[in-house]
Structures are given as structure tokens and as C-alpha cells.
């Protein structure tokens, strides 16, 4: 199968795949949107979905998998003992909850299921210039406009942007006017909590 035909086959098989993973969830299986896109010739560039990735909101969870829903489609994801999970820190599958946003990376199976190797849960990304920092919370003037509050996770790392080496002073070394980027977790109440911040020297 070439890539296009593979994805066509995957789309046709998706409903049965969900039923296979989640036999107790017929309503969800019935709402699966088949993949009919044909602009999938390459995994690089614009408009090119990659079968090794699935992202979306968790709408169903069972013992060994979940279904992710996005505006485009719904896709079943299988997990196993080797699947790695991140949700603010390294966690296990039990930490994934309905309504979480998941980015899953792995190996596509012939039935359309993604067998996940790595899963990021509620990961958020931000860029901006520091306005205030009290070592508990940072106020950022976002690069894209507006301001945002970013709390600091107990797992926070602060690194230098050029080589990702630990930054001297940690969070205390982040002063007003410094341009930073970062990742973190979006909490249930919608707040950002930074787990890693990088900054210029």
C-alpha cells in the first residue's frame, strides 16, 4: 500500500477499530468520522497529516486505550506497558482523564488505531517577555499580544536557550525584560503551570 491507499484503508476501518478497542461504547463507534482526505502524500509540509500522530480531546478511556476527538476526526489510541506518559511530569495511564488534551506519537496499526509510544497530556507552550517574577508566578507580555500569568510547577527547570544548560539562579535568574519561552501543563481550571522555561543569556 502506498501512503494514500493506506490512509484510505485506515479511514474505512476506523469504525470497526473503535469497536474493537471499545466494544462497550457503541455510541462513540457510531460517531467516528471516516478519513477521506487525499492530501496526504508526504509527512512534510503543509496540509499533511501524519499517521504516526494523533491529537485531540479524550472522549473515551478503557483499560488499554482511549479515543481522541478533534474537529477533523476521532481516532482510537492503544496504550501498552511501554507507552510513556507526561502530564506535568512522568505519570502512568491512570493519570489521563476524560476531557484532557492529548498529543500521542507512535506506530499506526493497519486498523487505524495508533499504538502510542509517547503521550503528552495538556501540554501548553508560551513565549513572552517577563514583566514580574515573584518565584511563584511569572507575569508575561506574550509575544503574540496580551499578558498571561504562568505559575511555576514543583518540577520547574530553567535553562539557557542556546544549549539548554541549567540557568544560573534558576527561577530567581529570570528578571523583568527577559525574553523567555516555555512549556508546561494546562491545569483543570485553565491555568498554565510551567515545567520548563528557556531564556537568553
Amino acid at each position, binding site marked *: 500500500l502506498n501512503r494514500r491507499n493506506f490512509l484510505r484503508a485506515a479511514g474505512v476501518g476506523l469504525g470497526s477499530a473503535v469497536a474493537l478497542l471499545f466494544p462497550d461504547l457503541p455510541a462513540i463507534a457510531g460517531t467516528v468520522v471516516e478519513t477521506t482526505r487525499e492530501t496526504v502524500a508526504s*509527512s512534510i509540509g503543509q496540509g499533511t497529516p501524519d499517521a504516526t500522530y494523533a491529537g485531540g480531546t479524550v472522549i473515551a478511556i478503557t483499560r488499554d486505550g482511549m479515543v481522541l476527538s478533534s474537529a477533523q476526526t476521532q481516532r482510537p489510541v492503544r496504550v501498552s506497558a511501554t507507552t510513556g506518559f507526561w502530564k506535568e511530569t512522568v505519570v502512568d495511564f491512570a493519570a489521563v482523564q476524560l476531557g484532557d488534551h492529548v498529543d500521542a506519537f507512535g506506530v499506526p496499526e493497519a486498523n487505524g488505531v495508533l499504538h502510542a509510544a*509517547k503521550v503528552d497530556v495538556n501540554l501548553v507552550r508560551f513565549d513572552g517577555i517577563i514583566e514580574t517574577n515573584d518565584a511563584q508566578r511569572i507575569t508575561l507580555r506574550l509575544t503574540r499580544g496580551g499578558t498571561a500569568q504562568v505559575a511555576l510547577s514543583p518540577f520547574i527547570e530553567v535553562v539557557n536557550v542556546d544549549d539548554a544548560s541549567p540557568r544560573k539562579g534558576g527561577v530567581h535568574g529570570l528578571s523583568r525584560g527577559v525574553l523567555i519561552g516555555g512549556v508546561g501543563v494546562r491545569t483543570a481550571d485553565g491555568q498554565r503551570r510551567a515545567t520548563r522555561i528557556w531564556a537568553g543569556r
Partner: protein
Amino acid sequence: MTRYVGSASYFCCYPDPCGCDEGCCRGPDCSYLYCDQPTHATGACCTCNTFNWGYAWKSFCNTCCDTNLYENLSCGFQAWIGRADGSAWFQAPQVDHGPLTCVMVDLTKPLFAQLSPTGDLSPGIIPNIRFDTVSPG
């Protein structure tokens, strides 16, 4: 010729599709301002939305880049981005450059995750990334 060695990070386009730096593409549908300029290309936030799966990845310029990298490259210019040790390379269209970055390239999320030492996005910033304008091979 190696043009850049340093750190790279993904740029959050979706579900925040108009999050580009000042000077890139903006607007509620990411369809105007600089999107029609030949040096700003059609990628980055212009293509990141529910139905387009391109993601932009930027390499930081804060302290480590040669300003000669601020070239006017045509829309869709193909670049190579990969690990500095040459163990992984992906070709991708360059979509922008600017005061906060050396380059931005359109590379799918899974491919960028392959450059991550842990295979996922949670590290945020990835060191030891190389960007070339000619094939490393």
C-alpha cells in the same frame, strides 16, 4: 554548508493558530498582512489550523546566530533541519525568519518529536539542532 547549530522549539500554532511573532501572519483567519509577502511564505500560522497539519518550528537567535541568516528566502524555500550529529535529517519548507528566530520551518509534529531526546514534545526546547540550506548528504 551549515547555517545554524543551536536550539529549536516548536511554535504553538494550533489550537492557537494566529500566534506568530510580530511581522508574520496575523488576523483571525491568518490570511492577511504578511501572508502574501514572498519572504514570509505561506507556512507557520498561515497553514496551522484544524485542517492543515503543518507546524512551525523555530530556532532561537538570541545569542548564537550569525545575522547573515536574516536572508530573504523565497516562499517555500526548502531547508534541512536535523540533529547536529547528522543522525536524523528532515527536509521542510522554510516559512519565516525574524528578530526572535533564525529560521522557522514547517515540519509536522511527529517529525519534530523525533528530534526530541525523549521522543515527545514535553522538553519544549531541543538543543543540538542543525539547520542547513543545502542537503547534508
